[in-house]
């Protein structure tokens, strides 16, 4: 051909070397990555970690499994191993099942209360470094039981369906706030403390996992749990709606309102270089749910007052606990410090102490829709 050869044509002087190379590749003595068949995989969805005499005890559970085209149901597979380290335990779990245990789908991580008291950082580090696990998994603290018990609570169905439901509900605003392991780790490193949703086995024989407020980690150990009203207070501080219905007795009759969203803004006041006061403004939006007659004017005003009083009580309760522990897990100081960059730089390292001591002024604004 007299036209110049344009573009990528390989030097095809003779195809023999290429064929030889291909044959070499197809034999076993090549560095090709091994293919793994999916038909032989057990997909772990939930992982639970506890301390054990040997070191650490890891429990994993797949969800309900299906077999064959018709999807005949098989019970969930639960594996557990006790070893010195997390990677050792995970490797041991491989040997316990007749399928290849795949960790890439682990979406829920349960940490037992005992392990939380010892320190969660090794677990979070392992999740951040491993090729299959990731920091996108949802983190839960198990209160009053070990993670192994919580996982076994699922029985044949496994617990990940329940946990996934709680996760979806929280996005819709009808359950507790859920957090990923990455968000918790970031908060631990940036703020020194973090809040983690807590569960505990409830019902007969611990068959169901129920939400139990939040656990607060300081450093990387457990500082304590916040339940009930204090838990709602933390939700208000962190900014998120949750399953919360307020029943208020008005002159016209009982009225039920749902908190749809909450947002807390914080401001710091400085005296010289030292913070003198922390001002919190919490804007809450509520929606009328049940009422005998639609309140208006005076009724709305009294509704607003009563709602803001209730929310203030919650906020104060949560803040009291948090200040007792010295954990600013909602990042109030950091948010306020953005407006005073020079002074915040100096104060930042000692903020947990200031947080415990600085007087807090709370202002709640309720908007009724």
């Amino acid at each position, binding site marked *: 051909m007299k036209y110049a050869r344009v573009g990528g044509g390989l030097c095809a002087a003779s195809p023999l070397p290429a064929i030889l190379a291909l044959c070499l590749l197809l034999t076993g003595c090549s560095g090709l990555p091994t293919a793994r068949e999916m038909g032989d995989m057990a997909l772990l969805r939930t992982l639970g970690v506890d301390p054990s005499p040997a070191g650490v005890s890891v429990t994993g559970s797949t969800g309900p499994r299906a077999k064959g085209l018709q999807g005949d149901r098989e019970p969930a597979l639960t594996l557990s191993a006790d070893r010195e380290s997390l990677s050792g335990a995970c490797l041991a779990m491989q040997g316990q099942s007749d399928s290849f245990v795949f960790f890439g789908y682990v979406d829920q991580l349960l940490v037992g209360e005992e392990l939380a008291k010892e320190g969660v950082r090794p677990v979070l580090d392992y999740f*951040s470094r491993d090729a299959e696990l990731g920091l996108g998994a949802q983190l839960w603290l198990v209160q009053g039981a070990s993670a192994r018990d919580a996982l076994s609570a699922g029985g044949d169905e496994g617990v990940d369906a329940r946990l996934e439901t709680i996760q979806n509900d929280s996005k819709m605003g009808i359950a507790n706030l859920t957090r990923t392991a990455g968000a918790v780790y970031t908060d631990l490193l940036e703020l020194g403390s973090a809040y983690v949703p807590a569960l505990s086995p409830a019902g007969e024989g611990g068959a169901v996992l129920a939400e139990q407020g939040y656990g607060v980690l300081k450093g990387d150990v457990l500082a304590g749990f916040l339940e009930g009203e204090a838990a709602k207070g933390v939700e208000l501080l962190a900014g998120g709606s949750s399953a919360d219905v307020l029943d208020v007795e008005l002159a016209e009759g009982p009225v039920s309102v749902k908190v749809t969203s909450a947002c807390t803004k914080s401001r710091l006041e400085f005296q010289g270089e030292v913070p003198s006061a922390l001002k919190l403004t919490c804007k809450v939006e509520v929606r009328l749910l049940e009422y005998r007659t639609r309140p208006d004017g005076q009724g709305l005003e009294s509704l607003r007052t009563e709602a803001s009083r209730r929310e203030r009580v919650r906020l104060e309760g949560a803040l009291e606990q948090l200040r007792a522990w010295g954990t600013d897990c909602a990042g109030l100081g950091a948010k306020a410090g953005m407006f005073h960059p020079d002074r915040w730089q100096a104060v930042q390292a000692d903020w947990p102490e200031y947080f415990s001591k600085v007087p807090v002024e709370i202002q709640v604004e309720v908007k009724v829709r």
Partner: protein
Amino acid sequence: MKDDKISRTQLMALLWAGVMAPAAELLPGLLLPGAGKGAWLAVVLAAPLVLVAGWLLGSLAGRDGLARSVTGLLGRWLGGGVVLLYIVWGLFLLSLRLRLCAQRLLASGERDGALWFFLLSVAVVLLWMGRGKLAAFARAGQLFLTALLLTAGVVLGLSLFQARPERLLPLWWSEAGPVLRAALSAAGVMGWGLFLPFLMGDVRDQGENKNWHWLFWGLGGALLLSAAQAVILGNLGAALAARLDNPFFALAKSVGVEGAFQRVEGVVTALWTFADLTMGGVLVFALRAMTAELLPPKALPWISWTAVVLGTAGALVLFPAAGTAELWNRRLVPAGNLALGFLLPALLWVGERLFRRKGKNSISCMRKPA
């Protein structure tokens, strides 16, 4: 076309597609120990340095490419020595790039498989591209840049919603020192593109609005890079990002659309091979341009083969211990890029100015007739 020239847009596209490879590996990890929260600002502050270096190299390179300008300026032997220095550095960067790419592919989830398989496959594709025409490679580079920008845009766009401003701010003057030092490191990372002026000899001169074009692409790319760092830091926070090996790919692991796709880190890592191929290709073509100045034309068809074979051999041999490649990538390479990309061109540029002035003076001396 009738000529084998590329356009300025294609040159800039090759630059940014190539720089995305070291940028994803090093930024913000390299900057965090020093600058902490201010790592994203360090990239913004590195932009003027990068633009100045680019301007120096560009004005030195002129229309003929940097190699010819250097040999023209310094003479055959001294200029040849300088070009040889760049050649050695280019070969080293090529080995490093191949090694790091293979290591990244090995670690991304292909749990088994040998390093040399990934290394050889990338090297084979690089050889195929390096033997062809620059115009074809530049067109491919534009498409690679589009794919990389789309991927990075999706990953960073989806994680934008979880970014918190309080992890980025506040920054105050007390951090200026560390941030400026980190800006030097960031400029060193962006200095991987210092070999592009060697290709200036193949750029079609459009004529109009040249400076605005360079400014747009240079500044735009640096700003996009710093925006990416801001999103990464806003998501992970400075401390966690410092602990992770590779914050960008870790972010890709946790991003996703519920029910559509999740955990697509493997796909992002595989797509980032495009960036490594572009950087490797730029290095190979720059080596071709440089050796074309030094060697007789008969040897030219063998340059790409030699370069890729030497690069592969270097990648296999030069980094025996685990972690050597990463260490050199973090310490040695940014410093070397700054030296060869900013200091040396600055010296050459100053020298060129003096030479020109002396030349003018000597002519004016000669013009003083009796």
